[in-house]
């Protein structure tokens, strides 16, 4: 059949058995069916789509044009909001942590804490926010509207695998852009932190900059970039899955976009937690 995951719930295989659906047993069955659908079938289909997309990724020719167009599109919808979110984020961190640190008498380490907080955690989180909220939703809306206009069907009928043609370039573009967004958030966030520390908290520029590498180390940046990459892939896949399964006209697309944002957020925060935990297991903190 066509690529699993597309229109998954209409593809059959889950034929209703002839058992009676009346009475308490029927109600119980409906409830358990619903629960099984949420707990097993949907994740299963999503996983099938992920595997198929992975397979399609290595199929020649790679859709460079689509990749570049999508990457540009994602950049255009995320860069400005990312910067606008990153500046106050860096500022707030400086304000909160800076005040605390001053009370502890370690004001010269304000820069060090800002780097750790922003590079390790804040920038992947801001990136995930933007990737899920802006890029994922736009991608899901695009694929979903193509689905309900039967463009995806038409593409399959023309002998073209939509996973290869549409999903792979989008997913990779999302990951590619996320990596750079993460860098952008780090830089802009630190600039925001610097501004707040120096201008509002009477910190000295020299102390802020000199303590930059007191706690932070290169693997911190690498793990943040890895997180961003994983977030991009996840957001792309969820958006593609929800978009390809959109049904019921324009409202269906709206629902799919909504679910995409919610599911992507949850997954990204979970992934963020897992990667952070693993990171601290494998990379020892730098001593001062």
């Amino acid at each position, binding site marked *: *059949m066509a690529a699993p995951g597309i229109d998954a719930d209409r593809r059959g295989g889950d034929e209703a058995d002839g058992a009676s659906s009346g009475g308490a047993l029927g109600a119980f069955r409906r409830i358990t069916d619903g629960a099984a659908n949420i707990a097993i079938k949907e994740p299963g289909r999503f996983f099938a789509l992920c595997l198929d997309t992975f397979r399609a990724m290595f199929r020649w020719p790679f859709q460079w044009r689509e990749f570049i167009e999508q990457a540009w599109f994602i950049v255009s919808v995320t860069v400005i909001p990312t910067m606008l979110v990153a500046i106050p984020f860096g500022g707030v961190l400086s304000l909160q942590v800076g005040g605390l640190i001053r009370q502890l008498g370690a004001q010269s380490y304000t820069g060090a804490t800002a780097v750790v907080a922003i590079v390790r955690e804040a920038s992947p989180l801001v990136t995930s926010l933007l990737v899920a909220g802006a890029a994922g939703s736009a991608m899901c809306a695009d694929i979903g509207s193509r689905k309900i206009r039967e463009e995806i069907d038409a593409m399959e009928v*023309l002998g*073209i695998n939509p996973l290869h043609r549409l999903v792979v370039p989008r997913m990779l573009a999302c990951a590619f852009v996320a990596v750079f967004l993460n860098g952008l958030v780090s830089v802009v966030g630190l600039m925001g932190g610097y501004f707040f520390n120096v201008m509002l908290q009477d910190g000295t520029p020299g102390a802020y900059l000199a303590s930059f590498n007191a706690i932070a180390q290169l693997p911190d940046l690498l793990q943040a970039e890895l997180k961003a990459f994983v977030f991009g892939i996840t957001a792309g896949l969820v958006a593609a899955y929800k978009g390809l399964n959109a049904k019921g006209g324009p409202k269906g697309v709206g629902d799919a976009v909504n679910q995409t944002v919610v599911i992507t957020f949850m997954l990204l925060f979970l992934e963020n937690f897992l990667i952070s935990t693993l990171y601290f297991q494998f990379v020892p903190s730098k001593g001062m």
Partner: protein
Amino acid sequence: MGVEIRVEGLTKSFGRQTIWQDVSLTVPAGEISVLLGPSGTGKSVFLKSLVGLLKPDRGHIWIGDRDLPRLPESKLYETRKLFGVLFQDGALFGSMNLYDNVAFPLREHTKKSESQVRQIVMEKLELVGLVGAERKLPGEISGGMKKRAGLARALVLDPEILLVDEPDSGLDPVRTALLNQTMVDLNAEIGATFLIVTHDINTARTVPDNIGLLFLRELVMFGPREMLLSSEEPVVRQFLNARTVGPIGMSEEKDVSELEAEAALGRDPGRLPPIPPQLMTSDGRIRPGQHAPGAWCAAHGVTPPAGSFVDDLGRDWVEEWPRYVASMAPGAAAAADGGFAGDPRPGPSAPGAGR
């Protein structure tokens, strides 16, 4: 020259709702077949199953020697290149203009140079009358134009099988007639197998070689056009004559009391008048015997109702047909002083088995 589609025992359901079951039919290679049915009987689902967009629960779909539902993905995409599909609203790619839409399959599947692509695309666009609109985006054109552009795209790889979903929906009667004529001409020209899904009876009466009717989750009948047009089967008769009298009700099927009341009143679905020749599609190319009125009935010992093949000029086409075919034979036209004397139109016109 077209590929036969053989469907055996096909069943499809969504959850607990059975769409249709045990559908078996053979769409003959190189002929036009029409699948009719009231709204909501799963005609479009059937069409999507034929190209593997939906997986049937049971049954086989043989395209040549390949069983579509059981093909691995790579073979399925390969097999789909045999198909051209015209979706209900064209399903054009919204981000591309008409030219790129039509050129898309050529660029994906062939190694043709851009000038060759251009030549083929313009040829197909001319065929559907869209030259001049090729730089327009799908959002900027009317439904009829979308449909014609969709047809051009479906044709661009010279498919062996052409599946058409409701060519008449949302089109005015003139464009419907022209599109129907285009399909008949195409069938004569490229010899592809056509399966048209519709609920327009005029399309069904003028275009196909074969008709099938889906009703109440079953294929009621599938056979040569004349067999269905002259059928006494109540569902077929009601549908093809577009009457309220008969088993098809507003929601789905009428209940027994309603049918008994109709029978008690002696109401009869009746017959539609024959389609006048000027509204008939020509068969594109004269193929003696293929459209000969009454031939199928004669071969199968069926007596068609009186006046079945008499048009509104009073000509009985069972008698007229051989003379008509002879007049259209190469060389005969000039000798017969500009064509068939009894035909009001210039040029080829095959009235077929008009009722």
